[in-house]
């Protein structure tokens, strides 16, 4: 295994292959759910990066909104529908704002960090909802996406978007995974455990947090851009309002911080639970979501990924007596 292709790297790649293969066998509605899961999972991945150092943002719809609106505004005002260009712009704009806000936010910890993010996301929501040129409360509809010189029509468009999103998300997840395994990435845990000691070692905790925040914004913007192209429409209520931020935190809790793949599994599960609850029990779907969240906090505080860790531990324990017996034989 090379430095890049460790077990998580292989798992992500296999995930990508699986997605591309299943694309030909799944109904339309399920593909939409998968696409949204990729988008929202990306934002939750941004939260994971922050969470590793003990920070959580209650306003990550801020970057989701930046990404989505950048794509929509480019389509509306510049008439450019190329996916590579618009997504790149969305990522850069969201990342740029995260970088700028980072100078301020890196001084905050705990609940203040979370709530300041919420305040900024609500300011964005207010601006988007009030300004006519940004679509106001009605939002902006997107034209069909194109890919360099390829402009698919009809059902091919959906497949193209799905492939595009899957491959891009794979690249993003691989990049974040690589980052988390770098020295700067490992500092996350140190920041969470004891900042003062980290600073005594000669590192700047604030700088580490700033980098993380910027990465988190970039990834969030990417998720927003994919979501905008998936839904084909952006409006403040579904892109920047605070319950959307709540959804991301929900997904992050559900998945746990164990692995960069976890947020995508969590996002898929979240979308499935919500779709099912909304279809089957429209009167009490919030109750079901709240109940699920509560059960996870109470019984799986490290998210679904802790089940994988548990399984690994069990397997290791089962392996040990066998190894001991073998040694005796020898």
């Amino acid at each position, binding site marked *: 295994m090379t430095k890049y292709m460790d077990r998580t790297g292989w798992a992500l790649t296999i995930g990508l292959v699986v997605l591309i293969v299943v694309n030909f066998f799944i109904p339309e509605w399920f593909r939409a759910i998968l696409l949204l899961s990729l988008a929202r999972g990306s934002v939750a991945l941004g939260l994971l990066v922050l969470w590793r150092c003990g920070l959580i943002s209650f306003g990550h719809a801020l970057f989701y909104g930046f990404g989505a609106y950048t794509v929509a505004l480019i389509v509306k005002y510049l008439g450019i529908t190329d996916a590579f260009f618009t997504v790149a712009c969305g990522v850069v704009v969201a990342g740029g704002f995260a970088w700028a806000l980072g100078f301020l936010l890196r001084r905050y910890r705990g609940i*203040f960090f979370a709530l300041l993010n919420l*305040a900024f996301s609500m300011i964005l929501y207010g601006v988007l909802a009030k300004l006519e040129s940004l679509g106001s409360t009605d939002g902006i509809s997107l034209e069909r996406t194109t890919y360099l010189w390829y402009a698919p029509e009809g059902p091919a468009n959906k497949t193209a978007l799905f492939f595009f999103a899957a491959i891009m998300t794979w690249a993003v997840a691989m990049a974040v995974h690589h980052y988390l395994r770098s020295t700067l990435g490992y500092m996350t845990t140190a920041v969470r455990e004891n900042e003062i000691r980290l600073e005594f070692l000669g590192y700047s905790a604030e700088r580490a947090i700033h980098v993380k925040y910027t990465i988190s914004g970039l990834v969030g913007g990417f998720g927003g851009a994919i979501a905008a192209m998936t839904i084909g429409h952006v409006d403040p209520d579904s892109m920047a309002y605070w319950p959307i931020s709540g959804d991301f935190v929900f997904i992050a809790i559900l998945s746990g911080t164990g692995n960069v793949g976890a947020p995508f599994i969590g996002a898929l599960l979240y979308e499935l639970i919500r779709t099912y609850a909304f279809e089957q029990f429209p009167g009490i779907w919030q109750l079901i979501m709240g109940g699920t969240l509560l059960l996870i906090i109470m019984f799986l505080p490290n998210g679904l990924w802790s089940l994988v860790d548990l399984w690994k531990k069990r397997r290791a324990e089962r392996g040990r007596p066998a190894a001991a017996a073998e040694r005796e034989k020898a």
Partner: protein
Amino acid sequence: MDTELLLIILVDGLVYASYLFMVSVGLTVICGVQKILNVTHGSLYAFGAYLCATILIVYAETGWPGAGAFVIMALTAIFLGIVFGIIIERGLLRFLYAEDEHIIVLATFAAFLILEDVLLLIWGTNPYIAAEPLALLGQTDIADLPFDNYNLSMILLSALVAAVLWYGLRRTTFGKMLLAVIFDRELAQSMGINVTRVFLLTFIVGSFLGALGGAYQAPAISVQPGIGVEVIVLAFAVVVIGGMGSIPGALIGSLVVGVARAAAVHLEPVLELFVIYMIMAIVLIVRPQGLFAPAKPRKI
């Protein structure tokens, strides 16, 4: 700007500020003692409003004196405060005190989602309107604009609540115990203060204040789904601006936000939607702990 407009902004701002204070003071009390941001506060407000409106509608049909409505509000709030206080604190929060503060916020958020649907299951989606107390108190003209006396009376009520809380905290034994717990939970426990009981009582008082806010507001608004969400986000902002756990902070925070919002409504309506968050962001940038947050020792 002419003086009349200024007066209107001031009165409007005061009314809105008293509403904000009523909904955020309970939150800040709980926040100060238990160090948690309690999202279910919004549910308490909504339950207070719904239950009170339902009873008031029935009461209006009996033809008994209108002043009884105010007794009903108080009783509703006390009832809800005790019932929900015990259920939420004993049934949920006490298992979570050891957890990270984010986790507790999320747990109360989950409980809030559940309670939102319980609310819908009990009362449905139709709005409830119980405006008799509003009509009972009549109107006053300020600068040629009619203001409901009922809304103005809310200013008095919040002043009363603030005074009672101040007295309770500074001049009674329980208040002093509370301050000891706020200062250092473990030390207070080792001095023989029953922290578990203090927590439960604080939570009941906080929940009572939330429900009272809803119950008193009920005649002035159309009670419908979504009022809890609106309140909790506003109350969060006020508490953060004032400094978590500070009652004077909640008072000043409400005043600042209330007047700023009234000014925005009358002068620049575009700003109304996010003026409160702008203030929150500015305050946090200048004073990261909020305006009146109690000083905290740094622990290494």
